[in-house]
C-alpha cells in the first residue's frame, strides 16, 4: 500500500478548475454575448412596445462569435476522439 500522492491530485484538480472556468463558464458567457448582439442586431418590437431598427454591425459580430464558439466545440470533439483519429486514420491533432 503506497502513500497517496496528494500533490498530483491537487495539481490535477487545479487544472480542471482552471480549464472549467475558462471553457465551461467562459464559452457559455461568450454565447450569451452573441445572443445579446443577435437580439440588438435584429431589431423589431421590444417588450415595452418600442420598435428599433436592426443593427447590421451587431448582427455580424453575433455571427462571428457563434462561428468562433462552433470552431472551439468542433476542436473539442476532435480532441475527444484524437486517439481514434490517430489509430484509424493516422491523423495527429495539433495541440
Amino acid at each position, binding site marked *: 500500500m503506497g502513500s497517496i500522492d496528494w500533490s498530483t491530485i491537487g495539481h*490535477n484538480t487545479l487544472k480542471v478548475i482552471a480549464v472549467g472556468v475558462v471553457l465551461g463558464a467562459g464559452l457559455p458567457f461568450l454565447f450569451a*454575448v452573441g445572443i445579446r448582439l443577435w437580439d440588438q442586431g435584429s431589431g423589431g418590437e421590444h417588450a415595452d412596445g418600442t420598435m428599433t431598427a436592426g443593427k447590421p454591425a451587431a448582427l455580424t459580430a453575433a455571427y462571428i462569435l457563434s462561428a468562433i464558439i462552433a470552431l472551439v466545440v468542433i476542436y473539442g470533439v476532435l480532441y475527444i476522439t484524437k486517439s481514434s483519429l490517430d489509430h484509424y486514420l493516422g491523423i495527429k491533432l495539433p495541440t
Partner: protein
Amino acid sequence: MSGELFILILVVVTAVGFDFTNGFHDTGNAMATSIATGALKPRVAVALSAVLNLVGAFLSVKVAVTVTTSVLKIQEKSGGLIQGLDQEKAIFIIFAGLIGGILWNLATWLFGLPSSSSHALFGGLLGAGLAALGTGGINWNGLVSKVIVPALMSPFIAGAIAALGTYLIYAMTRKVRQSKRSSGFRWGQVATASLVSLAHGTGDAQKTMGVIALALIAHGSLSDKDIEANGLPVWIILVCAGAIALGTYLGGWRVIRTLGKGLVEIEAPQGMAAEAASAVIILTSSNLGMALSTTHVATGSIMGSGVGKPGAQVRWSVAGRMAVGWILTLPAAAVGGAITYYIGHAVGGVGGALLIFAILVAMSAFIYLRAQKQKIDAANVNADWDDATGSVAPASQQTPTDANA
C-alpha cells in the same frame, strides 16, 4: 461446452447487462435539462443521446484497465492477470462485482436517484474482491485517490462552474427578449448536451469493454499481448456499443425526471450552462486520467445552475437524498458484490455461476415490476414535481399506500 466456457459466457452476458443499465441510468446526465426545458422532445432527446453514445463507444480504441486496477489488485498494468491468482476466483470476483453493480443501479433507478454507474461497478468489484482475497487484494491507494477524493470534489467544482456560467449568462442577457433568449439558448443546450453524450459513450462503454476483456484474460482465451498487438476484439466493441446505446435509448425516465424536474425548475440558459460545465469538466478530467463520474459532475452542474440564477430555487431535500444515495453507492454495491461472491463461491463451479445469475435475473425482474406500478416514461417525465411526497412518481401516478411508503 466446457464448464469454464459456460461461466465465461454468463459473465459476458452479465457485463453487457451492466453496460445496458449504465446507458439507461445515465441518459439523464446529458439529456434531462434539454427534456425539461422542451428544447428537445423526450423521444428525440434519448434517440440523439443513444446515437452519440454509440458513436462514442466505437471511438474507444484503448482498453480501460483503470476500472479494475483502481480498486483491485488482480490485474497487471499491462492488462494481464496477477501471477498466482486462481482463474476461477478471478472470474467469480468479476461476475459478483458486476451483479452487485447492476442491482444497485436498478435499485437507485427505481427511486429515481441519479447515482454513479462507475461507483456501482467499483463498489461491486471492491466487495467481491474483499470477500475473495481479503484486504490485501484491494488497491487502497487507488480507491482513495481515484475514486473517493474525485467523487467528493467533482460535484462542488462542477456546481461552482455552472453557477458562475449561469450568473454570467443571466447578467448578460437580462435585457434580451424572452423569445430570442429561449430559442438561442435551446440551440446551445442541444449542442452541449450532445457533447456530454459523446463523452459518456467514449468513457463509460470502455469500462465494460475493459471488464469483458479481463474476464476473457482470466479465462485464458485472450491475452494482454493480443490486445496490445491487435486492439480489442471487434465483437466486444460492437456488443458494448450496442448495449450502452440501447440502454440510453430506452431512457432511465425516472432519473431524467429527478434531474430535470426534481432538483431545480430549469430554463434553457441554465440548461446550457449546466451541460457546458459538465462537458468541459468530464473531458478535461478524463484527459488527466482522473475518472470522474459523469453523474456526479452532471448533478453538481444542474444544482449549480439553480444556485447561479437569481431567484431560482434548488430543492435541497431532493439534493440531500441524492447525496445520501451517493455515499451509499460504494458500500451498498460492495455488500451486494460480497454476498454474491460468497454464494457463488460456496456452491462453486457451473452450479454457483448459474445460481448467482438466477438471483440477478430474479431480483432485476422484481425491481422492474415494482417500477411498472408507478410507471414514468416519455409521456409524464415532465409532469409537475410533487413537493408533498417528494416522490419521483407524479402525484396522479401515486396510490395512497405508495405515498406513505
